[in-house]
């Protein structure tokens, strides 16, 4: 709390942030900028439209659907139905790594597929070209699955990607073809696309293969997309603990894993925003409880493993988890002890994603650093304030258009993994069963929480707080660095990582140490600028020998 004292009163800062906006915009933005109090969490306006003309970090629904959720599964052929750009920009740019079983196994992630819609397709409809494209993809690759993604013009011209997919699925016979209406204008950000993707994966993939695999402690890892190899590290830890991973949604995943995922006994959720729908739907249909975890941060990883062991309530597993923690932690501690003296007391700001701005605070805490301001790019109120606010969230016109699947218990496959009483008991023990407390509870009093921060606000924040590090994405990276402040990309990790688990934590410590202490930041001014450039500078020459 000490650190906060150096800054002006946060309500003054808030005023300053919106000062330049036209009155209406200022009024709207003020509701998305709140001063935190973890004891009595204030309401944050979130998941609302960005004001036109504001330079925002946000992307679109298609990016959330294709880019985030479906992109990482390596053996689906993802065809983007629309003009070329949308598909081009999502081509390999998200860094979701994958490791096929053998060099011969399928992997289409390196490919970019598009129907490259032309003017005549916009005028006369593009369904024919789409079906042709599906046929060509099938003839070339014979994939198990083909997914179709609609981009902006598709919805407007009335192409029915679902009907086209169904027709092709029936025609091809051995290829599961399905479509997504994830046009970029749906919703207010990527978030709409996550929801649409969850619905599609749930409808068309989950539950297609009932074979129950070996394994005593079986779970799915939800909302982990294997950026920079994050899922690999979690897989390593699970294996060491004797936990069986049925499927990841969707880092390093395959169609087969997703289709079989309903045979797991627990869903653990990393990124709540992008995948909580899946957790809920699987609970209702199959009786699998879900639990919020966080593998970002060494302490958080240990905590999450203990929660999983607690859930399965097995003495052997609990013992094994403790062994693994005891084995891994000393290596982590040794590195923290070396680095922490150099990072202690420094400050960070995080404006990114739907969960990372929360998770990464744990790593900064481990480094002795303070988060002075944070916010999400496309989250909802529950990600800030906790899921208990869900009943109070107003459904506006933009969210109303996104389908809510009507899910009921499966007559054959529904099988509650725990009784109500057992679940209650677990909650008592502090497990976030079917719940999430959100980011704000963990943040300091008087820190700033800002949803959908604008470019203008970020620059102002940097001027006022002069943080030691700023975390955001590629669009912000060089702007912030031009201001002399290092920016850590938390979408692409600046092409580093993994940052999850024990190994990941140490990678992150090293990277942050490097960034905040890099001598290069001190070299920005030229010597003549420091010396007043020519003014009053007589040559200070001296003879070597007197």
């Amino acid at each position, binding site marked *: 709390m000490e650190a906060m004292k150096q800054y002006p009163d946060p309500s003054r800062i808030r005023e300053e942030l919106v000062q330049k906006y036209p009155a209406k915009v200022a009024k709207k933005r003020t509701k998305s900028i709140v001063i935190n109090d973890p004891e009595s969490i204030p309401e944050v306006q979130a998941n609302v439209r960005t004001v036109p003309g504001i330079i925002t970090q946000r992307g679109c629904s298609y990016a959330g659907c294709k880019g985030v959720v479906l992109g990482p599964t390596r053996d689906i052929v993802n065809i983007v139905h629309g003009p*070329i*750009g949308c598909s081009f920009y999502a081509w*390999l*740019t998200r860094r979701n790594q994958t490791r096929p079983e053998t060099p011969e196994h399928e*992997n289409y992630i390196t490919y970019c597929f598009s*129907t490259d819609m032309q003017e005549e397709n916009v005028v006369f409809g593009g369904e024919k070209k*789409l079906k042709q494209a599906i046929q*060509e993809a099938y003839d070339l690759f014979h994939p198990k699955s083909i997914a179709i993604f609609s981009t902006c013009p598709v919805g407007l011209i009335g192409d029915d990607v679902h009907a086209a997919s169904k027709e092709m699925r029936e025609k091809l016979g051995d290829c599961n073809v399905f479509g997504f209406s994830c046009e970029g204008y749906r919703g207010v950000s990527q978030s709409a696309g996550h929801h649409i993707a969850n619905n599609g994966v749930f409808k068309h993939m989950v539950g297609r293969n009932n074979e129950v695999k070996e394994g005593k402690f079986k779970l799915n890892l939800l909302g982990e997309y294997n950026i920079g190899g994050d899922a690999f590290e979690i897989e390593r830890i699970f294996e060491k603990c004797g936990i069986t991973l049925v499927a990841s949604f969707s880092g390093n995943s395959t169609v087969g894993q997703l289709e079989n995922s309903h045979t797991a006994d627990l869903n653990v959720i990393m990124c709540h925003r992008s995948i909580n729908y899946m957790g809920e739907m699987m609970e209702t249909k199959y009786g699998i409880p879900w639990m919020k975890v966080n593998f970002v941060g060494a302490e958080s990883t240990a905590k999450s493993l203990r929660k999983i062991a607690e859930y399965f309530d097995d003495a052997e597993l609990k013992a094994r988890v403790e062994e693994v923690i005891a084995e891994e932690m000393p290596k982590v501690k040794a590195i923290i002890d070396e680095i922490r003296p150099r990072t202690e007391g420094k400050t960070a700001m995080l404006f990114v994603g739907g969960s990372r701005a929360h998770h990464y605070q744990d790593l900064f805490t481990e480094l002795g650093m303070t988060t002075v301001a944070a916010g999400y790019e496309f989250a909802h109120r529950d990600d800030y304030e906790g899921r208990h606010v869900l009943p109070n969230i107003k459904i506006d016109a933009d969210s109303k258009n996104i389908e809510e699947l009507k899910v009921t218990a499966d007559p054959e496959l529904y099988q509650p993994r725990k009784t109500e009483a057992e679940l209650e008991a677990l909650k008592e023990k502090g497990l976030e069963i079917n719940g999430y407390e959100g980011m704000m509870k963990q943040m300091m009093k008087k820190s700033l929480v800002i949803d959908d921060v604008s470019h203008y606000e970020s620059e102002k924040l940097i001027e006022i707080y002069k943080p030691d590090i700023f975390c955001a994405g590629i669009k912000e990276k060089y702007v912030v660095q031009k201001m002399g402040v290092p920016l850590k990309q938390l979408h692409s990790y600046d092409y580093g990582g993994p940052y999850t688990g024990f190994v990941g934590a140490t990678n992150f410590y090293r990277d942050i140490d490097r960034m905040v202490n890099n001598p290069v930041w001190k070299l920005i001014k030229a010597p003549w600028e420091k010396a007043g450039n020519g003014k009053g500078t007589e040559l200070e020459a001296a003879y070597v020998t007197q």
Partner: protein
Amino acid sequence: MLLRHTPKEVKEREGLTINPAKTCQPIGAMYAALGIHGCLPHSHGSQGCCSYHRSTLTRHYKEPVMAATSSFTEGASVFGGQANLLQSIETIFAVYDPDIIAVHSTCLSETIGDDLQQITKKASDDGKIPEGKYVIYASTPSFVGSHVTGYANMLTGIAEQFAQSTGEKKDQINIIAGWMEPSDMREIKRLSKELGVKIVLFPDTSDVLDAPQTGKHVFYPKGGTTVEELKSAGDSKCSLALGCISAEPAAIGLDKKCRVPFETVDMPIGLSATDRFIMSLSKAAGVEVPDEITAERGRLIDVMTDMEQYFYGKKVALFGDPDQLIPLTEFLLDLGMKPVHIVSGTPGMRFEKRMKEILQRIPGANFKNGLNADMFLLHQWMKNEPVDLLIGNTYGKYIARDENIPFIRFGFPILDRIGHSYFPNVGYTGSLRLIEKILGVLMDRQDREAPEEKFELVM
């Protein structure tokens, strides 16, 4: 193998594009607008397009790329985007205070049928455009053409909406830059200065997308063609358009509006194209070519003769954009190399015709542009007739790795190396750099793969 599913056998495709050798119009429009001083590009559509374009340009330049968006939601898509654009204009002038907003459309606003001319006129009538400030526009639907078309459309918009003729000709020449790097634009300015010719270069992204680190973020960096310069372009003696696809349309627009005659020359990449550029510029300005430029040329040709053995007969595959591919292919031929496979996703008969002419010297060369001319096809061709060198944007590295072929990054986007913003590919010096790069990868390969007894000290 990263592209393990690409079969050798080529089958005709009509519906599916795989690994495109192009992207969409608005990104080109955004890039062109960044070359105007004090200009904020604005994407009229939903947020995603703008976010993708900014991200891609940022990855290519490792620089701030500022642009705003109309942030369409479903309502706007149904009722039209006028309200969104009007609000954008108001917000942008209040918050970001540019001199110019350069609006481009997207697939979405084009499909809806938003009329940018009418909306900007309304903004002006409603008093939403402050005194002395401008809102210009270009229509850039991505279901037509490619990113190159978008660049050309925005550039044409800039020329037509700013240039004025006062009736009095100025002793200056317009150089309309096709899509090239800030480093290339800087080099064009240096060459013109060397020749003693006063030019108006537009757009000009030097000192915008290669801005120095000063510890301050300058929202509108010092570079970019100024409004004054653009206005005066209508009084210039003539225009040189560098590239028939990306630059010529603006020259035509300028000629139509202000009667400024123009000549289209190739982008000066390689020896012959640079020769033609220097000839045209010296003729247009009525100046002699100074010895220093002749010496620059001499240095290039000197290296070409000294190292000819390493180029001669080597087969090359390339992909990219028309205005670069035309002179580059010609340059490779001048070096004695054999460009055997070429694709560009950008359509156009002019391009096709030029390439066919140039490629007459290589019977059997594969060339395709436009629809389904993609990197998947190029890769298949390469499996059927292997090459010694691949030239193209960063996405080529997947092919290069699978096929174990030396690879040079050239074009857009380059996401994994630096240099393109700082060191030109145009002019004699730029061509020398290209040669250096080609030699570098070819010789590195020879060094890596030579049997021990054939490992050479001197090359």
